[in-house]
């Protein structure tokens, strides 16, 4: 009995010392791996002489990055990009060829080496794909694309599961189809546009005839100008506000519906239905149908 009592005492002291050791070790690991600007100065610098510049420059010592690029010289008209995890950036430029840059990265070297980027060209279509496609629920690394396109391109289709999609300096009038599950989407100078995201904000500049924008959780911000008749404008969000800036020539048959949020419009509207959650009417002659719906968020239509 006495021996058992002694054992408990010894174990107690041993565990106490172990817990103190774990505290010190975990604290030192946290400080080493996650430098915070606030604790760079005295007294932390004395206790942990870390090369902060070096630490900040590297995203993580364990992550592996493999960069690559491909040049496609033919004037293809359609671009398709399919990704699973990683960002897609597409930029318009004045050169007459495609430049596809990519960065494969992941926490383990063997995972990154397993990732491949496939560039296929068929008649008028250039297709960029990350391989292998989704194999398991656990993502093994990501591929980020930075693609430069000439002004011969007429349609762009970009698809990602996790990662943003950003289009910059686009030539005017390109038909765009952009989809991501988790990540924001931004595009400029688009023609007909179809955008969908589950969790992420969307911003766009639109000057076409058909617009279809939807997100579940995220706001929508957009600019519309030089709208062409013959199409329709559909914008919907479940949890997020929708703010649109349109030029003064807007001629639209509007239906604005917000379940729990305000609705406001800078344009003079000939109102046909006005309720707390719904505004229907015409702006100008009302050539283009515009439906905007959100469940939780405000709707604003402003003049550019």
């Amino acid at each position, binding site marked *: 009995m006495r021996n058992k009592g002694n054992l*408990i*005492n010894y174990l*107690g002291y041993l*565990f*106490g010392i172990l*817990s103190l050791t774990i*505290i010190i070790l975990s604290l030192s690991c946290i400080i080493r791996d996650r430098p915070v600007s606030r604790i760079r100065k005295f007294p932390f610098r004395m206790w942990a002489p870390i090369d902060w510049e070096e630490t900040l420059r590297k995203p993580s010592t*364990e*992550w592996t990055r493999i960069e690559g690029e491909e040049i496609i010289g033919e004037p293809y008209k359609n671009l398709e990009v399919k990704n699973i995890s990683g960002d897609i950036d597409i930029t318009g430029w004045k050169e007459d060829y495609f430049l596809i840059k990519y960065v494969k990265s992941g926490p383990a070297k063997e995972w990154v080496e397993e990732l491949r980027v496939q560039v296929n060209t068929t008649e008028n279509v250039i297709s960029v794909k990350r391989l292998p496609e989704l194999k398991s629920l*656990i993502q093994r690394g990501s591929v980020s694309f930075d693609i430069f396109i000439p002004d011969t391109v007429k349609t762009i289709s970009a698809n990602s599961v996790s990662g943003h999609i950003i289009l910059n300096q686009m030539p005017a009038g390109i038909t765009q189809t952009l989809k991501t599950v988790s990540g924001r989407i931004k595009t400029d100078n688009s023609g007909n546009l179809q955008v969908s995201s589950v969790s992420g904000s969307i911003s766009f500049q639109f000057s076409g005839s058909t617009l279809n924008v939807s997100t579940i959780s995220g706001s929508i911000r957009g600019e519309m100008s030089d709208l062409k008749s013959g199409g329709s404008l559909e914008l919907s969000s479940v949890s997020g506000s929708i703010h649109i800036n349109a030029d003064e020539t807007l001629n639209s048959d509007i239906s604005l519906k917000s379940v729990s949020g305000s609705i406001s419009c800078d344009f003079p509207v000939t109102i046909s239905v006005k309720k707390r959650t719904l505004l229907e009417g015409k702006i100008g002659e009302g050539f283009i149908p515009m439906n905007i719906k959100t469940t939780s968020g405000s709707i604003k239509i402003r003049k550019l």
Partner: protein
Amino acid sequence: MEDENKRYEEARKIAKNKVSFIRHFITYIFVLIVLAVINNVTSRAYQWWLWVALFWGIGVFFNFLSAFIFKGGGLKKLEDDLIRREMKRIGAEKDEK
């Protein structure tokens, strides 16, 4: 007899604290191992389980201090001493009167 009971209660409390600390530490280590495995299987980029190790570890260490180092209750003893001293002083004042 009352004194004996009091001492027994105190001893029981100390023993209970010690056993409960041992149990607490074993739970702490077990949960940390599970969290570290989950963290490293899903992604090794960020070791978030260290935060749990740090803050829970502080709690475990305080538990150790109270069970093994300040087992008699440091402040409680001080309070008892003060009560005894005050009682003596009040008694002395009464005797003088």
